[in-house]
C-alpha cells in the first residue's frame, strides 16, 4: 500500500522540478511570489506528503500522520488568499502535482500492472483530497477577510461629531440597513448621553437612496433620540430624495428636515437660543487676526 510513499521519496527531486515546471507554464504568479519561495514550499510539502503517506497511509489525510502536511497546506493556502491568488490558481498548485507524480509512478512500477493501478488510484484520491482541503482553507481565509473588513467598515462609517456645545452631527455615508441602523442608533444615543446634547443633526447627503425601509430606520433613530430628550434634524435631503419620499407616501411630518447641513446647524443654533453675529467686515476681521502674530514677529 505504501508504494506511493516510496515512489515519491525515490523521485522527490525530479517530481519537484517537473511540478514547478508545470506550474510555471500554467499558473505561476511571479508577480506575487518569488521562484525560490515556491521551490521551498514545494520541497517541504513533498517531504510532508511522504511522511504522511508512510505513517498513516495515503488515503487517511485526516489522520495524525498527515498533521504536518495539512498544516503546511493550510498555511500556504491562507497566505495565498491574502496575497490575492484566484481560487483556480490555488487549487492548481496541488493539482499540477498529478502529472509529474503519475510519470514517476509509471516509470517505477511499469512491470506490475496491479500495483501500478492501485498506486495511481491512491495518488489521485490523495491529490483530490489535498486540493479540496486547499480550496476550503482558501475560502475560509477569504470569508474571514471579508467579515473583518465589513466590521471595520461598519465602525468606520458611523462617526458622531460634536458641532457645538449641545449640538451633534451624524453624517451617514452609504445605505442604511438594519445592522447599520443599530450601530448608528447606539452610537448616537451614547454620544447624546455623554455630551449632554439636546440637538442631533442626521446628515443623509451620503445615502444614495431612501426607500420606505431606510425611512423607517431613520424614524426609529429619531424616536429613540426623542425619548431620551434630544431633538433630531434631518439634513442633506436632495431634491430627488424629497420627491421619492413624497411619492412613496412616507410620513416625515413630525420630523424637522433641511436641505443642507448648514441650514440644519443654523436651525439648531437658533432653537438653542444662540445667534451668530458677524462682528466686522471680512477684510477688517482677517487683518485684525493676522495683525497679532505679525506684530509679534516684528518685535
Amino acid at each position, binding site marked *: 500500500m505504501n508504494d506511493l510513499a516510496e515512489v515519491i521519496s525515490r523521485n522527490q527531486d525530479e517530481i519537484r522540478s517537473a511540478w514547478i515546471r508545470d506550474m510555471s507554464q500554467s499558473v505561476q504568479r511571479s508577480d506575487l511570489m518569488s521562484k525560490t519561495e515556491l521551490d521551498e514550499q514545494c520541497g517541504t510539502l513533498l517531504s510532508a506528503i511522504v511522511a504522511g503517506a508512510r505513517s498513516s497511509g495515503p488515503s487517511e489525510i485526516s489522520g495524525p500522520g498527515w498533521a504536518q502536511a495539512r498544516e503546511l497546506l493550510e498555511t500556504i493556502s491562507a497566505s495565498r488568499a491574502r496575497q490575492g491568488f484566484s481560487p483556480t490558481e490555488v487549487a492548481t498548485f496541488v493539482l499540477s502535482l498529478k502529472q509529474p507524480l503519475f510519470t514517476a509512478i509509471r516509470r517505477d512500477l511499469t512491470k506490475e500492472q496491479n500495483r501500478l493501478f492501485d498506486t495511481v488510484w491512491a495518488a489521485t484520491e490523495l491529490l483530490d483530497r489535498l486540493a479540496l482541503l486547499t480550496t476550503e482553507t482558501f475560502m475560509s481565509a477569504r470569508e474571514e477577510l471579508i467579515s473583518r473588513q465589513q466590521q471595520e467598515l461598519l465602525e468606520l462609517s458611523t462617526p458622531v461629531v460634536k458641532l457645538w*456645545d449641545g449640538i451633534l452631527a451624524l453624517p451617514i455615508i452609504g445605505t442604511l440597513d438594519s445592522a447599520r441602523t443599530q450601530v448608528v*442608533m*447606539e452610537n448616537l*444615543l*451614547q454620544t*447624546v*448621553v455623554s455630551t*449632554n*446634547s*439636546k440637538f442631533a443633526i442626521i446628515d443623509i447627503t451620503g445615502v444614495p437612496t431612501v426607500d420606505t425601509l431606510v425611512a423607517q430606520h431613520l424614524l*426609529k433613530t429619531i*424616536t*429613540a*433620540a*426623542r*425619548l*431620551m*430628550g*434630544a431633538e433630531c434634524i434631518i439634513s442633506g435631503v436632495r431634491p430627488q430624495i424629497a420627491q421619492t419620499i413624497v411619492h412613496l407616501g412616507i410620513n416625515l411630518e413630525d420630523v424637522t428636515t433641511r436641505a443642507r447641513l448648514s441650514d440644519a446647524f443654523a436651525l439648531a443654533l437658533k432653537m*438653542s*437660543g*444662540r445667534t451668530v453675529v458677524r462682528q466686522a467686515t471680512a477684510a477688517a476681521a482677517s487683518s485684525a487676526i493676522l495683525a497679532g502674530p505679525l506684530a509679534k514677529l516684528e518685535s
Partner: protein
Amino acid sequence: MERIPVLRMGSLLLITIQVDMHDKLAMQLQEDVTARIADWGSTGVLIDISSLEIVDSFIGRMLSNIAAMSRVLGAETVVVGMQPAVAITLVELGMSLPGVRTALSVEAGMELLYGAGAGFRTGSDDERDEA
C-alpha cells in the same frame, strides 16, 4: 409596603424610579401622583428614569398613562434621563410615547417646564457659551 416617593419641588413634582416596576407599584404611583397634583396644584411632573436599565411595554404604558392623567389635571409631564438601551427597547416595542415630553436630565426637564409657563426661570446654564 414598598412605595415610590413623590417629592414636591415648588410647583413641580419629582418622581425618581429606582426599583423594578410591577403592577401594584405602578397603580400606587398613579394614585399618588394624581392625588398630589390635585392637593398641591402642581403644574409639572418630572419622572426620572435614569436608573432604569430594563423596560417593557408595561412601563412604557405606565409612563403614557401618568402623562395623560396629569394633563387632564392640568400638569405637564416630562420624562427625563432615559438610557440609550431603554430608548432603543421602547422603539423596538413600537412605543414612541406620543404626548410625553422628554429631556436629557432633571435640570433640562425643569427648564422645559418652567419655560412652559410655570412662573419663574432657573439660572440658565448657557452663560458659559458667552464667555
